[in-house]
C-alpha cells in the first residue's frame, strides 16, 4: 500500500478545456445503425471532442492555465512548480513541461517535469504536486493534465474510436498551512501493461514501415501497431477486481463514512464500468456525476472535465471529494480531498 497524507497544500482553482469540434457516435460510418444503438446505450457516449491536427494536449492545457491564472489573479513569476501529466506529449523528447513553462511566460525559477500516466494521471499528479508543494513555503504550482487521444486511435477500430475524447486541464495549488490534509493511495500492476497500449514507436518496438501497416484484428477492428489497443473486457475485470476493492480499503483505513463524501469523481471509462463502480460502492448516482455523454473518455483529463462540467455550479463552498483514476499501466489511485471554495471556471472551448 502506497499511502500518502499531505498537509499544507490547498487546491485553489481548476479549469478544463475542450476542442470546439464535436463528433457524434451516431454518425460513425463503420457500424450498422443497430450496432451503434447498442454501443451508445452501453458505453454512454453520444459525442466526443476532437482537437485539430495542429493542436496538442499541451495547447489545451495552456489555455486552461492562462484563464485560471487570470481569474486567480496570480502573477506568473509566483509560479515555482509546473507538472504536465499526459501520454500524448508534444515531442518524444524533450519533455513538454519546460516548454509550457516558457510558453506560459513563467519564470526560470520554476521546477517543471512530465509524468507519463493516463487514466490514473490526475490523481497521481495531484499527489506529486501536493507532496512537493507541502515542502515549499509560500510556493504556488500548476498541475496541467490532458490528452489528445484522437491522435493515437484508428478511426476504423470500433473498440477505441467511439470512446476517446480530447481535453486539457489546469489545477492551481499553493502552500497553505491551514489547508485540510489530503489523503492518497496509489497502486501499479505492470503485468497488465498490454491491456491499453500503443505498441510501436518506443524503444521496444521502434518505428518501422511495418508498424504503419493497417491490419484487420477482427470484424470492425482495423489498426496498425502504432495505434492504440484497448482490451475492454480486461479493463472491466481489473476495475471490479482491483480498483473497487482498493476504494473500499481506502474508506476503511481512513475511517471514511461514504455518506460524508459530497461527490465521487471517477475517471470516465465508459458507462458500463462507471455504473458498476457506483453499484458496487452502494452510493447514490447523483453523487457520482458522469460526463461521458458529451465529453467521452478524455483519459487523464476526465476527472477535471467531470468536475468542471458537472460541479461548476453546484459544489458547496466547503466540499469533501473522493477522486479515483484507473486504467493504462495498469495504474490506479484514490484520493480524498477537502476543498474550500476553489475557483472553478466554466468549460473553456478551444477554437480551431
Amino acid at each position, binding site marked *: 500500500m502506497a499511502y500518502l497524507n499531505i498537509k499544507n497544500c490547498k487546491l485553489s482553482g481548476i479549469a478544463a478545456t475542450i476542442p470546439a469540434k464535436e463528433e457524434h457516435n451516431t454518425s460513425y460510418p463503420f457500424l450498422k445503425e*443497430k*450496432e451503434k444503438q*447498442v*454501443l451508445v446505450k*452501453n*458505453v454512454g457516449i453520444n459525442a466526443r471532442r476532437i482537437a485539430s491536427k495542429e493542436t496538442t494536449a499541451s495547447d489545451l492545457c495552456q489555455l486552461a492555465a492562462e484563464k485560471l491564472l487570470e481569474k486567480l489573479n496570480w502573477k506568473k513569476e509566483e509560479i515555482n512548480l509546473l507538472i504536465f501529466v499526459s501520454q500524448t506529449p508534444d515531442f518524444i523528447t524533450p519533455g513538454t513541461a519546460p516548454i509550457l513553462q516558457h510558453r506560459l511566460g513563467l519564470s526560470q525559477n520554476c521546477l517543471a517535469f512530465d509524468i507519463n500516466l493516463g487514466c490514473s494521471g490526475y490523481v497521481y499528479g495531484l499527489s506529486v504536486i501536493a507532496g512537493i508543494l507541502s515542502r515549499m513555503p509560500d510556493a504556488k504550482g500548476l498541475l496541467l493534465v490532458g490528452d489528445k487521444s484522437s491522435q493515437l486511435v484508428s478511426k476504423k477500430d*470500433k*473498440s477505441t474510436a467511439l470512446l476517446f475524447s480530447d481535453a486539457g486541464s489546469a489545477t492551481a495549488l499553493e502552500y497553505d498551512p491551514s489547508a485540510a490534509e489530503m489523503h492518497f493511495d496509489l497502486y501499479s500492476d505492470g503485468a497488465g501493461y498490454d491491456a491499453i497500449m500503443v505498441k510501436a514507436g518506443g524503444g521496444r518496438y521502434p518505428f518501422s514501415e511495418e508498424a504503419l501497416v493497417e491490419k484487420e484484428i*477482427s*470484424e*470492425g477492428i482495423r489498426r496498425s501497431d502504432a495505434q492504440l489497443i484497448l482490451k*475492454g*473486457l*480486461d479493463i*472491466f*475485470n481489473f476495475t*471490479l*477486481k482491483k480498483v473497487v476493492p482498493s476504494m473500499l480499503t481506502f474508506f476503511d483505513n481512513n475511517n471514511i463514512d461514504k455518506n460524508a463524501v459530497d461527490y465521487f469523481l471517477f475517471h470516465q471509462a465508459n458507462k*458500463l*464500468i462507471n*455504473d*458498476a463502480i457506483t*453499484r458496487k460502492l452502494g452510493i447514490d448516482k447523483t453523487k457520482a456525476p458522469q460526463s461521458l455523454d458529451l465529453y467521452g473518455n478524455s483519459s487523464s483529463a476526465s476527472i477535471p472535465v467531470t468536475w468542471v462540467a458537472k460541479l461548476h455550479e453546484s459544489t458547496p463552498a466547503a466540499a469533501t471529494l473522493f477522486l479515483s483514476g484507473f486504467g493504462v499501466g495498469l495504474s490506479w489511485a484514490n484520493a480524498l480531498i477537502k476543498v474550500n471554495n476553489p475557483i472553478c471556471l466554466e468549460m473553456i472551448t478551444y477554437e480551431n
Partner: protein
Amino acid sequence: MQQDQFIKEIAAEFEHEKNITAETKFQQLKSWDSMHALIVIARIDELCNVMLSADDLKKAKTIQDLYQMVIRQKSS
C-alpha cells in the same frame, strides 16, 4: 435467481436477435463481439454479483452454461 429469469434477462441484452433460449450458442450470433461480451459480463455481475472472466465466457457455449458457471461460482 432462477434459470428462467436469468435466461430472460440475458436474452434482453441481445435486443436485435430473435428466439434466444437457454440453448442458444450466443457466441455464434451475428451480433456477438467483444462489446457484447462486456455487456453480458456486466449484466451478470449486476444480476448475480458474480464476475465471470473473459476465459469463462469463452468456455461457455450456451446461455445455460453461463447460468451453471454462475451457480458454481456462487457455491464455491
